[in-house]
């Protein structure tokens, strides 16, 4: 039997495969192969039926104008051209999504690293603090959004609290200026997820490194940047990628927080790529245009993922880079 312990999933041993040509499979091998295909058939059927098929269909639909009731009408690249050149809402949604991702993801990471670093000290009640910080990430997004919708109401508790300090709070969700900051505050409430992962990474840093740094007389600040930070960069990178992908797909919070089910929010200030796509598809039945927006979203996500991976070589530190 194969015992492919710890095999890197990407490396499928192409060299060996190419070098060795089996002239004929034995009966036993054939049977094994048959069972392999039989057993993976749930995934294979799902892949073809729910992923590959729909993807191909999506490309086709994006090149048509289609309301799903009348036959689709071929329009070529018009939908893409419309999004990129004519539709101001697309650019607004794109900008809003960038804005949200560009602030919420780094902010969440900075807070995560900061809190993890504090929790990594010899703190009494560390478990309790960790629980408090992690608990919000267990709350379903819908419940979170409900609480924030209530909290951020113009005469809601948050503005009341600001009132204690003599600050007159803004209209938050009803204001084109403040709805995006409100969404960012909501996302920061979930910083506990990153904190816990970063903390476990910090726990794994060998003590000797700090001992050496201490002997060399490095300050705590210096030790953080010279020892802790390089060691946790892989986890930061992972959270960055996942955070970016998630942020570009933001939907539920926006849908729930936007006032009176006006998904775009005041003056489309909270219109995001996915809310726009959703509206175009399921409110206006512009399936062609919505599919084009979906592919543009995919392109945006891919671009940022690739950029992140490219730059990662410069700042992500892999100790075990031997493979």
């Amino acid at each position: 039997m194969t015992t492919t312990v710890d095999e890197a999933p990407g490396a499928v041993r192409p060299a060996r495969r190419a070098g060795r040509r089996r002239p004929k499979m034995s009966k036993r091998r054939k049977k094994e192969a048959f069972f392999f295909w039989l057993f993976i058939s749930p995934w294979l059927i799902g892949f073809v039926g729910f992923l590959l098929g729909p993807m191909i269909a999506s490309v086709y639909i994006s090149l048509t104008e289609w309301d799903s009731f009348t036959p689709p009408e071929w329009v070529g690249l018009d939908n893409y051209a419309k999004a990129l050149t004519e539709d101001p809402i697309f650019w607004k949604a794109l900008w809003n999504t960038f804005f949200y991702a560009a602030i919420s993801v780094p902010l969440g990471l900075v807070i995560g690293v900061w809190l993890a670093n504090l929790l990594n000290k010899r703190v009494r009640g560390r478990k309790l603090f960790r629980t408090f910080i992690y608990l919000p990430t267990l709350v379903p997004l819908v419940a979170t959004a409900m609480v924030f919708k209530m909290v951020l109401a113009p005469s809601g508790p948050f503005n009341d609290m600001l009132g204690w300090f003599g600050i007159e709070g803004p209209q938050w969700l009803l204001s084109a200026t403040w709805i995006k900051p409100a969404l960012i505050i909501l996302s920061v409430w979930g910083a506990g997820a990153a904190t816990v992962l970063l903390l476990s990474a910090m726990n794994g840093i060998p003590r000797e490194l700090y001992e050496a740094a201490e002997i060399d007389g490095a300050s705590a600040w210096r030790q953080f940047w010279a020892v802790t930070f390089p060691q946790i960069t892989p986890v930061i990178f992972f959270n960055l990628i996942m955070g970016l992908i998630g942020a570009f797909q933001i939907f539920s919070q926006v849908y729930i927080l936007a006032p009176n089910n006006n998904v775009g929010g005041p003056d489309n200030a909270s219109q995001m790529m996915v809310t726009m796509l959703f509206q175009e598809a399921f409110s206006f039945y512009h399936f062609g245009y919505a599919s084009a927006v979906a592919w543009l979203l995919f392109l945006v996500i891919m671009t940022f993922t690739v950029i992140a991976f490219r730059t990662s070589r410069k700042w992500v530190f892999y100790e075990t880079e031997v493979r």
Partner: protein
Amino acid sequence: MAVAAESPEHVAGRRKGRRAEGEKGTRTLSVFKASPATYAVLLVVSALFFVPFILMISISLASDQTSAQNAFTVFPTEFEWSNFTDVFTATGLPVGRFVLNSVLIATLSAVGQVLSSSLVGYAFARLRAPGKGVMFMIVLATMMIPAQITMIPQFLLFKELGWVNTYLPLIIPNFFTNAFNVFLVRQFVSRISGELDEAAQMDGLGYFGVYRKIILPMMWPILTAIAIFTLTHAWGDFMGPLIYLNSEESMPLALGLQYMTSTSNAMQLPPWNLVMVGSIILTLPMIAIYYLGQKYLYEMNLQGGSAGVK
């Protein structure tokens, strides 16, 4: 994506034995000394992170009158425990049904993922066949496709099948597993020694027998993690139900809550106290599941980078 992220977690996991800051014996290095400022920051942040919970509780206990005037206080001053029964009767919506629908959708989704991912993951870990490498590359590649790409064609497909306004579009795809879970199971099974199933095969057990009798019983830590992950995801899912379900009777709680806030007319405030009760009902099972299954989720974190809990 999970591939690239896998190694750091492994490294962290393997080194568990020698933590940077031991709990006992050793002298505390200066970087690990907690100053009063450390405590101050942690206290303030913990408090800020906890305020929404307190609000959730205090609003859920507020009277209808307070709710109608939006005159909530941060700490509870009223204790209308009857809200917790009123939520099922006084909203004009079948909230009990919402909860039932959520349970049904989440459970069946988890069953589907566990059954399918275990079988497929086992095949990828153990069985040999030409083309397996390519297939696994495809599994990994599909992790990168955002759901939005397939959302519209899938909707049109399910509409064609007459599945709109049923639970089927939310449940059935889970019986065809997903790439991430296949990857997790495959990694897990790869670490189990092959001796046992070889011996079992000598004794005449077929491939399905080995899966069913040998591997499946050993897989339960990862399958529990997958079940928890699927449960929490399906329980909290908003967009899926929003697309497919539009009758009150078929809605899960996550969508029902949104419905509750939007049915009141524009001039009238939503029944915030009852909405918060609903939010608590939506939240508590997730916290319970997390605490019961914590160690399995940790297992999953080690296996595939991070599944995150959401």
